[in-house]
């Protein structure tokens, strides 16, 4: 269970989410930052630019590139010479990086990047959903989703710890909902430099481009060896499962805050209905649960922090005793009419002894508001499934029929 609020109250500042993330990046001591501005990521890179202008990030180069494509490409070079690297993007910018995302992961470069989650075109829409990062699920990046500003801030340091672990060496995305988290002001504790220094060791890669010990990076692999590279990437993802848990518990030891490792739970112990979700909607769901619990509804929440690697075992442990599970998604796989969390949770139950009905509900696309009433409606539907079985497996929970 999350342990956040009561500690360090005297240290809290009220800042914007983007500022908190930029501050976290700064105290993680990056050597190269490269990013292209795009709403709603912009404030992060603006704040980092100001830190650079004020001389607050020593031993760091900020490359003002001409596109997101080059932002990540430049970091390939920087990470390969041994630099700790950072970028931030969203939506179309992330999609433009698509080809390089595979490259970074395949070359095992532990770059950390914040995604200020946003819908993708067309129609153009700058508001929040999670289609952008979910669409990159198979690129070999670790994907972590933050619930609130404090978690987005703290997750940034955790991401470096996980990505740079010798048993992992994979890039990581810290996903925070655009606007809802990036542009909101909340009280939080900004990461303290001395504690970060204690928590996060300097990046010290085993292999770099170094003329004293020349190596070839990015050789081409024929059918005789390509499969084995993929296998090793997957193995690193498997290793990351334990490292994500470790990074969270180590963080708690140093900073006193904990949000769960791979997943977190809220009111799940006796829950008949369990809602699963990722990102800022968690807060709304928790409030809804509080209200429903007061009325005697046995409903709980499974917060998924890590979408890649997908924490099958951790999810099963939470949902195995429920009577119905609802996976809530801010994305859709077109042609399947399902959100990714739903599809993958369902798939993970195949060939297990866990027999629990799972339904999927898609909400909040393109920034559509998610009021408590929407969550209540979803819980009502789940209660009906308990009574009479699944009638609709997956659908939009907030579709406006009158616009169709």
């Amino acid at each position, binding site marked *: 269970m999350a342990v956040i609020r009561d500690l360090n109250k005297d240290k809290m500042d009220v800042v914007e989410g983007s500022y908190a993330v930029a501050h976290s990046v700064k105290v993680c001591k990056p*050597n*190269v930052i*490269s990013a292209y501005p795009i709403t709603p990521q912009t404030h992060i890179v603006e704040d980092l630019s100001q830190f650079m202008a004020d001389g607050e990030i020593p*031993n*760091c*180069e900020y*490359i*003002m*590139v*001409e*596109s997101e*494509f*080059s932002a990540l*490409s*430049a*970091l*390939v*070079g*920087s*990470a*390969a*010479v*041994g*630099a700790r*690297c950072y970028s931030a993007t969203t939506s179309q910018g992330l999609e433009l990086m698509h*080809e*390089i995302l595979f*490259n970074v992961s395949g*070359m095992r470069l532990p770059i950390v990047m914040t995604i200020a989650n946003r819908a993708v075109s067309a129609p153009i829409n700058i508001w929040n959903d999670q289609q952008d990062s979910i669409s990159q699920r198979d690129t070999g990046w670790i994907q972590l989703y933050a619930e609130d500003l404090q978690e987005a801030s703290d997750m940034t340091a955790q991401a470096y710890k996980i990505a740079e672990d010798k048993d992992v060496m994979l890039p990581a995305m810290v996903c925070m909902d655009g606007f809802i988290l990036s542009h909101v002001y909340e009280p939080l504790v900004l990461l303290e430099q001395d504690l970060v220094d204690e928590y996060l060791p300097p990046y010290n890669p085993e292999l770099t*481009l*170094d*003329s004293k010990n*020349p*190596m*070839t*990076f*990015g*050789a*081409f*692999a*024929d059918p005789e*060896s390509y499969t084995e590279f993929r296998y090793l990437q997957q193995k690193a993802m498997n290793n990351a499962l334990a490292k994500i848990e470790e990074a969270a518990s180590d963080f708690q030891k140093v900073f006193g805050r904990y949000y769960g490792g791979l997943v977190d739970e809220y009111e799940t112990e006796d829950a008949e209905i369990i809602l699963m979700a990722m990102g800022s909607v968690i807060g709304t769901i928790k409030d809804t649960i509080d209200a429903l619990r007061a009325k005697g509804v046995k409903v709980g929440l499974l917060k998924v922090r890590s979408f890649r690697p997908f924490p099958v075992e951790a999810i099963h442990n939470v949902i195995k005793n429920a009577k119905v599970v609802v996976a809530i998604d801010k994305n859709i796989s077109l042609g399947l009419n399902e959100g990714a969390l739903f599809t993958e949770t369902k798939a993970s139950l195949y060939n297990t002894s866990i027999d629990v009905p799972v339904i999927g509900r898609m909400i909040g696309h393109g920034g559509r508001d998610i009021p408590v009433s929407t969550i209540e409606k979803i819980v009502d539907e789940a209660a009906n499934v308990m009574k009479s079985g699944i009638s609709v497996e997956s659908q939009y929970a907030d579709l406006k029929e009158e616009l169709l």
Partner: protein
Amino acid sequence: MSFLFEAGHRGCAGCCDAMVAKFVLMAAGEDCIVISPTGCLEVMTTPYPESSWGVPWIHSLFENAGSVASGVEAGLKALGKFEKTKVIAMGGDGATLDIGMRGISGAFERGHDMTYVCIDNEAYMNTGVQRSGATPFDASTTTSPAGSESFGNPRPKKDMPAIMAAHGSPYIATCSLGYPKDLIKKVKKALEVEGPTYIHAHAPCTTGWGFDTSKTVEIAKLAVQTGLWPLYEMEDGEITSVKKIGKQKKPVEDYLKMQRRFKHLFTKEGGDEELKKIQALADENIVKFGLE
């Protein structure tokens, strides 16, 4: 004798890329990092687990050598390792003039201290001899083939050195693998000059152009001697030296007739007129760059 670019790679006999790469590393020495985009050079030199590179080398993608090189330079600077290590991006004409243009443009506009070497064999050779922005007028490629209604590529080469000069590069040079000493001298100079410098190396491809594998150097020289590939240096946007052709001047037919990609000009009706157009391009160069 041992070279930083080792023998035993998988290039064709008479391969132009291998020659240019070898000359560039002879100029650069050990303390450099080479970035190569996708292309023949990458594929023929790094079949895992083998490598021809005696210096640190990285391949990323087809279109991002300029950007990756920017990152290598910035990373070395941030880590305090930049002082002596030279950053060299080296790729083909497709990766340079076409798909990689944006990344190179960004790198030069930002002023990264690096040298970009274009190995120009005038088509997408790695993919099977398709037209690129560097393919010359009337060359027959698999995507600009000569046919009953076509004399091949309908457009002249993109003037990449001029584009790079417009970026404010302090040093730009054209060179040719037919003149290795000149090439090595220019690469050395490019590496010494601070800021983003550009080398455009003309590199005849035996497979793509269709000539005997023993003729790579001879054909490279003919491109220069006809005026079709002028050799010059530009410093801060001004031409500061030119390799004169003088008495060696040859008609363009001498160069074109040795290559399969121009064969149609000598067999097809109307070819004479096309040859005149190509001769006019050479004559224009001779006047423009003062080659005589």
